[in-house]
Every structure is written in C-alpha cells, then in structure tokens.
C-alpha cells in the first residue's frame, strides 16, 4: 500500500462505495479501506445472527427457534428504494443492477386512531378503502385525478391554482378534504416528516405525489423496492464496480493517522505504512474532529414470527405513523421484510422502527408503535447520533459523508453523494458520469 493514489476512501458504507465506483470509472486511482472485516459500515446487513446478538450485547446465543444463523442478513439502517428514485437511476446507469435481484414491497400502510390502514394511492383503491367515508372518497378521487393531470405549463389543468403561489392548504380546501385525508396525503404519499409544507406553494407537494404515483405505477403494490439478501448488497455491488475499474480493496485495516501537510490531506497511515493521496472520502467515524452532531435517531430491530396484524399477511410492508397521531413533531416509520427476501430464517419477519429522537426517553416515544408489532421475539435497540461535516473540504481535500438519516428511502443519501461529488470535482454531478467506460460483458448478451 506504500503507493500514491488519487483518492483514498475510508469506510465501505453505501455513500463511500458509490463515490468510490464513480471515481474509479472516471479513471482515478482509488484505494478503499475499512477498519471492519465486513463491507457496509453503518449501512451493513449483519450476518450471521450470532453477530447481531454480539453487536447488541445480548447475552447467550440465539435460541434454536431462530433457525440457522447464516440465513439471516439484518440491516442496521432500515430503508427501501423508490422505484423511480435516484438510487435506482444510479444502479441502472452503472449497471450494478446486474449483481442484484429485487422484490417489490407488498404494501404501504398508515396509522390512524390506533389502527393500520392500507394507503390508497390509486382511484380504484381509494374507492374501496375503509379509511374514508363515502363522500370523502369521491372528493379524494377527484383530487387524485387532478394531481395526475396537473401540468404546471398547461393552465387548463390548473383550475385557477397558481403552482408557485397557492399553498397546499388551499389546494386541500379546494377539494374539501378532511384532516385524516390530509394527514395521509402529506405523510404517506408526499412523505413529509412534518407539517410545514402546508403553508408553502403547492407545486413541490403535487410533484411528490405524482412521483409517488409514478413509482407505484412501475411495479404495482407499492412504490418501494428491496434487494434480496439485504441492503448490505448495495455497497458491495458498487465496491465491485470500483474494483473492476482498478480500485484496490482492503478490509480489516486499522486507520492510525490522517497525514496532513499545510492543512491539506496527503496520506493515510495504517499498520505503520503510509499510502499517499490527493483527496480523501470518509464517513464521520474516521474524522470525529471535523463533524458536528445534528440530532439522534432511534432504531429498534424487532424479530417476529408473524406478519404484522391488519396488513393482509404481507411479507413486506411500510407503516407510516403521522406525527399528529402520536403527538409528535416527526413521523415514525416501520419497515418490515422477511424470509421472502433471504434476510431471515423460514417463517421469520424483521420489523425495524425508526424515528428522530425528540425527548430524553426515546424508547417511550415509540411504545405505541411497538404495540402494533407484538408479540416480539427479540428486540435490538440502538440510539445513534447523526453527524454532518463542519469541514467541507475546500482546503483540506477531506470529503465527509453525512450519517444516514431516519427517512425510509435513499433520496437524501443520493443528494449527499451528488453534493460531495460537486465539492470534489468542482462540477455539477451528472448521472452520465457513472456510465461504464468500456464494455465488460462478454458472451451472448453484449
């Protein structure tokens, strides 16, 4: 490793692996190291199950009924991919899709008055939903077809709404929608975590609802996708891309020192050797003096032997608990997957509850949600700090990723990747930059 590289990357989380792939594809000489013996860092999927027990200091080994330990791949950070989202676009442009198989999440649900309801997102579903009364249904159906036809450049479709001026609150008023419908539209379709959007111009919200519907239209059932064997496959796929383009990979490397000269990174020291570089990419855990805490997330991994009640026995689903249903400022999410995704032993389900911490008793904040999941066979609770860089790298050439936030998809992660790219390269991120530069498939389907 006593060599000179263009870029050294520390940590094999998703953000780092995607950036590493982009850099290698564009001809940079990359050295990618991780202090752990596995890929994925904070965004790893832990296997076998024994390792998860150890990681959370649960005494003893998993009981017999948990099946074989190596059948488990448990995500530390729960997220789904939006079928029409930016991560899917990155997977397609880089052709990392070739290494992965996906399933569609079976349904999205919303919590209301202590119960779970399927989120109606098409007209047909809206008409059969028990979430709304008869008249409300008609009005919601009208609203959905209005959104579907909405085109900011075609005044005929706007019906007197000014996309840049009329607030979303007024649009809801125009369709005479009640509080419950507003709640699930804002939080389960437009996926806002707070209610601040209500008093902003409606265009952004309408576009989000459109995007949700378009993602939904791609595969039906729900707008979300999930890779077989867990989210940990995603960083591994991009790491392979980076390696194919010459990136050097080393795991299990303790990082002893970042070597600086005149305030600029010039190398990284590991096991007594120094690898030199011009730029460094890393996650916050490698540079605690250059990041600041921006909040906390609580995540509770729950192993179940049953599908969640009132979800039609779905083997995967998302449940959104809108903030005002539980007297909070931010929504609580549940992501559930199961043996059907090769992440759990036969007949087992993994539900992960996550949200932004708002009080000093976070476990209590999510108690009403845990009740929906009972009986829970085993719980793994983590409360983690979220960090953002205080050093944007202009002088140091150190580029630090943000901690994964509590959103249940990868859109904010992708925004961070685009932002780091821009700071490193001095030009706007372009998906075209990710395309493979040479043909590397041989045989029949070139």
């Amino acid at each position, binding site marked *: 490793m006593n060599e000179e590289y263009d870029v050294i990357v520390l940590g094999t989380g998703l953000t780092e692996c995607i950036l590493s792939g982009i850099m290698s594809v564009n001809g940079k000489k990359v050295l990618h190291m991780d202090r752990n013996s596995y890929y994925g860092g904070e965004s790893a999927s832990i296997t076998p199950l024994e390792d998860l027990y150890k990681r959370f200091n649960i005494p003893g080994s998993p009981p017999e009924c948990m099946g074989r330990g190596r059948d488990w791949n448990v995500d530390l950070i729960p997220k789904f991919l939006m079928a029409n989202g930016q991560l*899917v676009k990155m997977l397609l442009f880089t052709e990392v899709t*070739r290494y992965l*198989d*996906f399933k569609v999440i079976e349904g999205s649900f919303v919590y209301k008055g202590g119960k779970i309801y399927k989120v109606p997102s098409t007209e047909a579903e809206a008409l059969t939903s028990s979430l709304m009364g008869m008249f409300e249904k008609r009005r919601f159906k009208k609203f959905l077809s209005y959104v579907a036809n909405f085109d900011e450049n075609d005044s005929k479709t706007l019906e007197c709404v000014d996309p840049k001026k009329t607030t979303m609150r007024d649009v809801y008023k125009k369709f005479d929608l009640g509080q419950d419908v507003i709640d699930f539209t804002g939080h389960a379709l437009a996926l806002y975590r707070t209610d601040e959007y209500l008093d902003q111009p409606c265009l952004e919200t309408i576009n989000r609802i459109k995007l949700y519907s378009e993602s939904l239209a791609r595969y039906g059932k729900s707008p979300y996708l999930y890779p077989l064997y867990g989210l940990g496959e995603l960083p591994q796929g991009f790491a392979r891309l980076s390696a194919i383009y*010459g990136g050097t*990979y080393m795991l299990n490397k303790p990082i002893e020192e970042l070597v600086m000269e005149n305030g600029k990174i010039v190398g990284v020291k590991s096991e007594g050797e120094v690898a030199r570089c011009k730029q460094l990419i890393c996650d916050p855990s490698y540079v605690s003096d250059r990041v600041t805490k921006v909040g906390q997330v609580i995540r509770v991994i729950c192993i179940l032997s049953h599908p969640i009640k009132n979800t039609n026995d779905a083997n995967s689903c998302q449940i959104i608990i809108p903030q005002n249903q539980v007297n909070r400022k931010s929504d609580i999410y549940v992501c559930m997957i199961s043996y059907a995704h090769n992440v759990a032993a036969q007949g087992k389900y993994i539900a992960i509850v996550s949200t932004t911490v708002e009080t000093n008793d976070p476990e209590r904040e999510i108690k009403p949600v845990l009740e929906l999941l009972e009986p829970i066979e085993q719980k793994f609770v983590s409360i983690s700090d979220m960090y953002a860089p205080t050093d944007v790298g202009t002088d140091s050439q150190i580029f630090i990723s943000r901690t994964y936030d509590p959103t249940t998809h990868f859109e904010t992660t992708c925004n961070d990747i685009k932002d780091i790219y821009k700071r490193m390269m001095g030009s706007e991120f372009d998906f075209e930059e990710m395309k493979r530069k040479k043909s590397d498939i*041989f*045989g029949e389907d070139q």
Partner: protein
Amino acid sequence: MALRELKVCLLGDTGVGKSSIVWRFVEDSFDPNINPTIGASFMTKTVPHQNELHKFLIWDTAGQERFRALAPMYYRGSTAAIIVYDITKEETFLTLKNWVKELRQHGPPNIVVAIAGNKCDLNDVREVLEKDAKDYADSINAVFVETSAKNAININELFIEISKRIPSANAGATSGKGFKLRRQSSEVERRCC
C-alpha cells in the same frame, strides 16, 4: 428447451489462469498477455445439457481477493464455484484449501465445487501431482479436472461436469425469486421499426 441461468464464481490465487479459463470457454481464444484481472466482470455462455439449456453466468473476481476483501455478494446465489490452482506452483494448491474453507463458511450450502488444475501444458515443470489433487477433490466431493486454457484442454469438459452435478430444476426450486431492474420500457423500446 427450458433455459436455466446458473451463476458460477471463480476462486484461486492471482495468476493461476482464472480469467484465461473463462476466456477460452466463452470466446475460444487465449491471450498470453492477459492483464491481471481488471475489466472483465461478467461472461456468459449457454450449453445444452440433456433436455435443458444451461446458461452459465460467470463471475470473475475483480481483484478484491488480493487483500482478502472478497465481498460475500460474490458467492451469493452461486450454483457452482470453480477453484483454480496452477500445477506448476505448489503454493497455489495449498491455498486452494483455504478457498474451500471460505466457501463452506460463506457460500450457499449446496454449492457445486469444481477444482481445476490449470496449465497442464507445462507438464515438465509440474509441482503438484495429479493423483494428490484428485484424492483431495474426492475427499470433499468436488469435480476435478486438469486443464489448459492455452491449449484448450478439458475446458468444455469442466463445465460439462458441472452441469451433470446440478440438481434437476424442480428439486432446487426456491419460492418466488426476485427480478432484475430494467429501464422503463418506454425508455428502451422507443425505436423506429
């Protein structure tokens, strides 16, 4: 005829001829100046086997094994693994046993293992006896052949032997496989007659 896609991964020390074997199998050619693996990631070839077509999706390592950083994704869902050593280098035969161990630990439970003793055209500088390798392969119930990517010896046979070991379709049927992401049909199929 029913088409079955079979993922096969390659393992073995650097320089033993992994890429050369695949190149010979897929393109029927040999390049003595082949680079240490960078670039080739994915190769396919279809061969008939009884009343089925076996489409081999062959994954070459991407150099990640050099510092023991092979990702588990590499073995995931593999039907077979080909572990290659160089008959002219004893140490490549000794490390083969570590690859077998690694596969047993991290690979799928029913993976078919094949051992290829490559460069058998270099018989006069041989360091590993065919019998020793054969005995070892038998002891772990693996396919065994000596191959030469250079002279096209036993390369097709290697894959034929693998085909024979693969359980017939229904036996290993797993419930509900996933799918590959593709561009939206409107993006790719917009092409004039």
